[in-house]
């Protein structure tokens, strides 16, 4: 599903933070090209 994809990661302090999502995406085979931890909007 994420194999070979480029992932933009928008984590949140009160939810799942950016580095945690990035670790999951890398393990799923994606390349993380952008990762932050905050509220997006």
């Amino acid at each position, binding site marked *: 599903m994420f194999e070979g994809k480029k992932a933009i990661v*928008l984590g*949140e302090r*009160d939810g*799942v933070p950016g580095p945690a*999502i990035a670790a*999951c995406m890398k393990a799923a085979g994606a390349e993380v090209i952008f990762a932050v931890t905050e509220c*997006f909007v």
Partner: protein
Amino acid sequence: MENQAAIKRLVDENGADNLVVVLGAADLEGAEIAAETLTVGDPGFAGPLAGVSLGLPVYHILEPEVKKAVPADVYEQQAGFMEMVVDTEEIGRKFKEIREGNEKS
């Protein structure tokens, strides 16, 4: 707003075809607004993505579908703690709706 600009730049540089966005917000309403912004444009018409329809597939890390794609040990360690706090089925439904709506448009 800064992130909107950064994401717009990344899409310009990489093209949207091979990109996915993964959110981690615990607040479902906020996550939906972010997903909408990255799919059809900024609903508040305030940021760099106002009127810009990127059409990116947006996922939430707590969706059951996403969980299945991640090795179980990594997922448990990184995101497992939030599964207790939110309704993952509901998140899965909402984000699937957003992605399917995006495909139709």
